[in-house]
């Protein structure tokens, strides 16, 4: 067993994989990496299984010591990673010699950077997943964000890692966007025409009060339906629910599994990783697409992510 020592944790660093989908009956939301596309690519670059647990850092990274060495790959946002004062490039594997430390600073572009390790991060699984669910304190490393002094076990290196490289164009195609495509929500008809217009033309600002449970949006308020309170029902990932005051909230990976606010729209599956890379104060817009279009985009993204030939040189 090799180790990873947390010398400083950063703003919010958690262990994440693809989450534990399928436990709605228990009231458990899936959790998992906010940018599942980045996590997948980082693991594939290391020849790990796509959903191998990694560290998800948020807005500001930490410093990690590798007493036994490791091979790592950093993906997602650029947090200015360095080893011994030398910058570490994103999206390619790096050998870290025993006793070396990797340090991160504040983000230079998006919200989340993933530190993937060949062999993965070793934590006990909860309901089949290593991902941390912060609200309930379950899963991941002791159910919480990492702290200074934590010592985690990481995969031991047993084979040589090929210097895998992504093809040019792959990152451009999967780059997180600020215009999110949405389909109509189940209560879209409840909203007056004005609200639909505001949603499709308005510029919204991601509030500081956003986290893995949901992103609150400032900016134009949506005119809420005048109907009486709706009966609570299941809430899909990426649902855009509207509070009585007209504030839109995008439900995200650690979401409440049910809710009683009307949902005007839903971010499409192919754009969910973009939601995971939004920072507070980012300005975003919405663009409505048909269910058929959303499905075609999802299938195309899944095909690309499953194709070694199309992803790697």
């Amino acid at each position: 067993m090799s180790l990873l020592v947390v010398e400083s944790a950063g703003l919010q660093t958690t262990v994440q994989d693809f989450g534990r989908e399928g436990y709605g009956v228990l009231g458990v939301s899936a959790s998992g990496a906010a940018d599942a596309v980045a996590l997948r690519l980082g693991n594939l670059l290391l020849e790990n299984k796509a959903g191998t647990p990694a560290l998800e850092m948020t807005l500001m990274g930490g410093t990690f010591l590798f007493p036994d060495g490791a091979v790592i790959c950093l993906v997602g946002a650029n947090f200015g990673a360095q080893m011994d004062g030398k910058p570490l490039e994103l999206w390619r594997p790096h050998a870290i010699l025993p006793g070396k430390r990797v340090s991160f600073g504040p983000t230079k572009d998006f919200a989340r950077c993933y530190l993937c390790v060949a062999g993965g991060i070793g934590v006990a699984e909860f309901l089949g997943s290593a991902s941390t669910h912060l609200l309930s304190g379950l899963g991941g490393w002791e159910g919480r964000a990492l702290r200074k002094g934590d010592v985690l076990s990481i995969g031991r290196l047993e084979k040589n890692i090929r210097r895998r490289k992504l093809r040019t164009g792959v990152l451009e195609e999967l780059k997180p966007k600020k215009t999110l495509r949405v389909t109509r929500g189940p209560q879209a008809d409840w909203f007056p025409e004005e609200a639909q217009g505001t949603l499709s033309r308005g510029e919204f600002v991601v509030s500081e009060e956003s986290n893995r449970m949901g992103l609150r949006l400032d900016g134009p308020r949506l005119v809420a339906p005048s109907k009486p309170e709706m009966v609570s029902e299941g809430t899909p990932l990426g649902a855009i629910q509207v509070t009585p005051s007209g504030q839109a909230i995008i439900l995200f990976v650690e979401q409440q599994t049910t809710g009683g606010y009307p949902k005007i729209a839903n971010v499409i599956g192919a754009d969910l990783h973009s939601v995971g890379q939004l920072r507070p104060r980012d300005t975003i817009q919405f663009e409505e697409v048909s269910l058929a279009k959303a499905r075609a985009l999802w299938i195309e993204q899944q095909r690309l992510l499953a194709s070694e030939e199309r992803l790697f040189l």
Partner: protein
Amino acid sequence: MRFQAASDQALLVYLGKEIGSAAHERVVQLLRLLQQEPLAWIRNIQPAYCSLLITFDAATVDHAEVQAKLAEYESRADKMPSGKARLVEVPVCYGGEFGPDLDDVAAQRGMLPEKVVELHFARTYHAYFLGFAPGFAYLGDLAEELAAPRLQTPRKEVAAGSVGIAGRQTAVYPFATPGGWRLIGRTPLEIFRKDREPMGLIAIGDQVRFRPITKAEFLAPRQG
């Protein structure tokens, strides 16, 4: 039965419009049939009062195919045995530090706190579904006299085990989480434990009763 696309990968199945046992019985029967004869492309099922949210593998099936299959399941679901409802007893220490909103609720209703407590524990509740957080069961129906809106400003942290009321519902908070329900008591039981089988003390379809206990009983060490 009514279908409504909820997202590009999720479909809502409505089996009624109002909170009550009729619609919920159908929800539970369809859920049981889907658990007994699982469909490979279903990724998650989220039951609620009158509906099920079905999340599916959109690369394999589309909304129309999911809808057709669920209609076929629903036509057979009424033959599912409803099964014996489990009775779960939850001891609660009402009021004081454990139920900081009890006096307010009583004052608003113009009744004594003792009356609020009595109205709360006199009923046997039905567990409609689990949502919000792992193990958080929506229990109903609360006595009409106690129906109260949620707090204007939710608490940043509600202690684990807190018993709250909101509208015609009551629930026990399994974890220390934010919460907007009015708190009238607290249970010493651990509602959700990952090292226990089943993890949650209360499951969908269970019957739940509350039993008043004293502070001394609350603090007494428990066995088992």
